[in-house]
């Protein structure tokens, strides 16, 4: 099945930056060599698993765009001995919750299972991963769903704006391939293409697992070897290097709507950059902290131009970006763009203040453990950290690292991170011509 998610421009980064949480992470390899992190918690009889396989839509062959996405959508649509409806009925009987997702650089399998049904639930998931049927019934239905979703996206100003922005940033690089593919590629995908995507992606050569809930490490190791042991032990191919553009401009896409959607930004840092944590903290001050970010203060609170504006850091293995989005009436687009440019120049030139730094430190330190709330949250964080090569010990030291940040250092990073002359704006709507 294919779900519609609004925009997954960013890969995983928003999961990570954390604080010293009171979670005890057990890090181990299963007998078959699968890397897994576990937070054991027996207070509720459920287990949450999050698995990432490091092949994503970036690995789709040319003209086969969307094959990984469609393949993942078909994993819960029938196995060798169950048709699509039969498979879903089993899931419902067991009260299991499976989710299969595709990102640009990874595919994700997540599961939540009730302890009393754990064994049959894991067995059902194993069949989905090992013996998907890719029959024509679910395949044509899911193809129709993807085409319908592409139809919806084509007229969604937010999607149009993000796609155009990503197209400017990624150009010919395979990261520019939409995970959902395009109408032509989806229409032409064959069962063989889906099987090829399956053989590329569902391999245990590079899989990371986060788990949280009602299970011990020994039980989990055995469970995972049973679940993934049947998959081949190959690794995904390497993605070419990425060079992001460095020239700013404004691009307008005509769309009949009273309010324009604006996506803006430029190149940024990769997750493993030594300055990444400071960049993250800067963006919290600048565009991510609810009503109190600089962008919100200026454009919503002072100017009343928008219901909401925000920015985030988007990271991939080979490159990163600073991206923002907002919507404003067609008449006020130019005023909004001017205000964004001013804020961008201000933080680049002057950095942030000691007071802003102190406030954001308190917020980031105090809020970290709130992220480790449910088993599902924890499993997701643990798997996301492994995906980004962040050590488990980060959870214990993260708040100290934040505390240690000094104003001079972070403002040096601000100058490097925010580049007003490189700002690309994509406006989707019918804005007034600049006066």
């Amino acid at each position, binding site marked *: *099945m*294919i*779900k*519609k998610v609004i925009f997954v421009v960013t890969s995983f980064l928003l999961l990570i930056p954390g604080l010293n949480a*009171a979670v005890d992470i057990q890090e181990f390899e299963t007998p078959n060599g699968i890397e897994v992190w576990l937070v054991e918690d027996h*207070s*509720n009889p*459920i287990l949450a698993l999050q698995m990432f396989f490091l092949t994503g839509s970036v690995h789709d062959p040319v003209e086969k765009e969307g094959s990984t996405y469609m393949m993942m959508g078909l994993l819960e649509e029938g196995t060798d001995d169950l048709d*699509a*409806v039969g498979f*879903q*009925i089993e899931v*419902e*009987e067991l*009260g299991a*919750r499976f989710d299969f997702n595709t990102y640009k650089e990874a595919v994700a399998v997540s599961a*939540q299972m*009730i302890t009393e049904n754990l064994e049959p639930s894991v067995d059902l998931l194993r069949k989905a991963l090992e013996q998907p049927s890719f029959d024509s019934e679910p395949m*044509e*239905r899911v193809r*129709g*769903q993807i*085409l*319908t*979703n592409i*139809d*919806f996206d*084509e*007229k969604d100003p937010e999607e149009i704006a993000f796609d155009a922005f990503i197209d400017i940033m990624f150009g010919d690089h395979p990261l520019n391939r939409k995970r959902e593919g395009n109408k032509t590629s989806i229409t032409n995908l064959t069962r063989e293409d889906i099987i090829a995507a399956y053989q590329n992606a569902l391999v245990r050569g590079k899989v990371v697992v986060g788990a949280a809930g009602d299970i011990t490490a020994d039980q989990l190791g055995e469970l995972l070897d049973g679940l993934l042991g049947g998959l081949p032990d190959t690794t995904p191919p390497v993605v070419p290097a990425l060079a992001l553009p460095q020239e700013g401009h404004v691009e307008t896409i005509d*769309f*009949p*709507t*009273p*309010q324009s*959607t604006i996506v803006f930004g430029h190149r940024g840092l990769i997750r493993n950059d030594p300055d990444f944590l400071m960049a993250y903290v800067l963006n919290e001050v600048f565009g991510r*902290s*609810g*009503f*109190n970010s600089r962008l919100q203060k200026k454009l*919503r*609170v002072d100017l*009343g*131009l*928008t*219901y909401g504006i925000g920015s985030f850091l988007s990271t991939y293995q080979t490159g990163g970006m600073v991206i923002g989005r907002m*919507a*404003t*009436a067609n008449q006020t687009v130019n005023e909004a763009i001017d205000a964004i440019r001013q804020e961008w120049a201000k933080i680049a030139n002057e950095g942030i203040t000691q007071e802003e730094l102190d*406030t954001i430190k*308190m*917020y*980031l330190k*105090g*809020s970290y*453990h*709130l992220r*480790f*709330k*449910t088993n*599902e949250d924890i499993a997701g964080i643990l798997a996301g950290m492994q995906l980004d090569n962040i050590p488990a010990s980060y959870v214990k030291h993260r708040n100290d690292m934040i505390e240690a940040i000094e104003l001079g250092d972070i403002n040096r990073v601000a100058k490097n991170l925010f580049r007003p002359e490189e700002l690309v704006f994509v406006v989707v709507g019918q804005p007034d011509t600049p006066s």
Partner: protein
Amino acid sequence: MTLRIFTLIGILFCSTSYVGALEVPENLSQFELDNGLKIIVIENHRAPIVNHTLWYDVGASDDPPGKSGLTHFVEHLMFEGTKNTEAGEFDNRIKLMGGFNTAFTNQEGSGYTVEVSTEYLEQVMELEADRMVNLTFKPELVLRERDVILEERKQRVDSSPSSLLREQLSATLFQNHPYGIPTIGWEHEMRSLTLEDAKSFYKKYYHPKNATLVVSGDVYPDQVLELAKKYYGHLESPDDFERRPKLLEPPHMAERRVLFRDPRVSAEYVFRKYYVPTEIASDEENLAAIAVMVEVLGGSGITSVLGEKLTVEEKIATYTGAGFIGDVTRPVVINIYVVPAQGVSLEEAEAKMDEVIAGFLEEGVDKDHLDRIKKQIKYSRIYAQDDAKNAAMEYGYGFVNGLTVEQTAAWTGQMLNTDEKSVLEAAEILLSKNNSVTGWLLKEVTEQ
């Protein structure tokens, strides 16, 4: 396969009661202060976190005539400063605690949520109690925030043909009840909202007697009660508080159709809303049967009756779904939609939808299917315990929707008590098309 095409799913499944308990759970305590403030404490020691949500029994249905959007406007102004705090300071203070806060308005209620580490509970109470009575209305802030809600309307509604269709459908379905008017408001009325409107509305509805405080998470009832007395106990409620009279729908006597054309439409679909008459929906057993019936018919993608027939067997649809919203205390609406497969017309999709409904009534309810849904209802209760917020929201919504704690707690049991016969009887409402409006979302064909 579940549909996440539009936020539809939110409407269909927003009955939070779905994960309720069989009886008032042991970890729930109730109190009432002398000034009328009701307090619900739900213990959940899963994580050292507390969720503090203050619910006011005032929703968009309470907007005075000609002032649609006022309830939601006041919700925005709650962040704009009090006698003791500057505009924006509420957020700043919560942020310094590392906390998360948000607010929401629907047709029945307004809620203010803060989630923080347990040690900050007292500070949160002090701040929330302050803005129950001390809001200042600075003219320049009020006008600026009115611009913000107008932008919010553009972003949430006017930018989306699906949202506009739903707004038109509700406006057509309801003939007397304020549910026909959108929570965000009609634009021309939003433009006319004034500082005086907001001030008098706030005075009338924001006081202890009209509120319920729900605190859930790593807390103990005595501790919460003591703090609540300290911070909320001295606040006063007006003596002459009177709510608007409850408006009822007249009998619906005509099938309605809405054809919504928009150049921004790329995928067409059929969306029908049924109004369930109060004499049926106000009975708890009937309503539970309706909830389960809707789940059997279209709640779960390809394993539901609509999904299996139209997407898997006949292949005339890419997505189908059904859901319901409402309570015994307020209007109940059933939603059904079909997104046709490529090459299938809306006319055919609607005819097939009606065929499935007629067949469902003829063939009855499959016992295995019903049993499976009941199992899922039970399992969903286990999952819900993973986050203390779930129970808090469930009882909070129950309060603003006019339900007692006991009624909210009983809901799951009522669904589990349904049988094939009661579920089938509930489906008969789907035959009364005079209670319904059917919408077609259409591509606008522009003439060359």
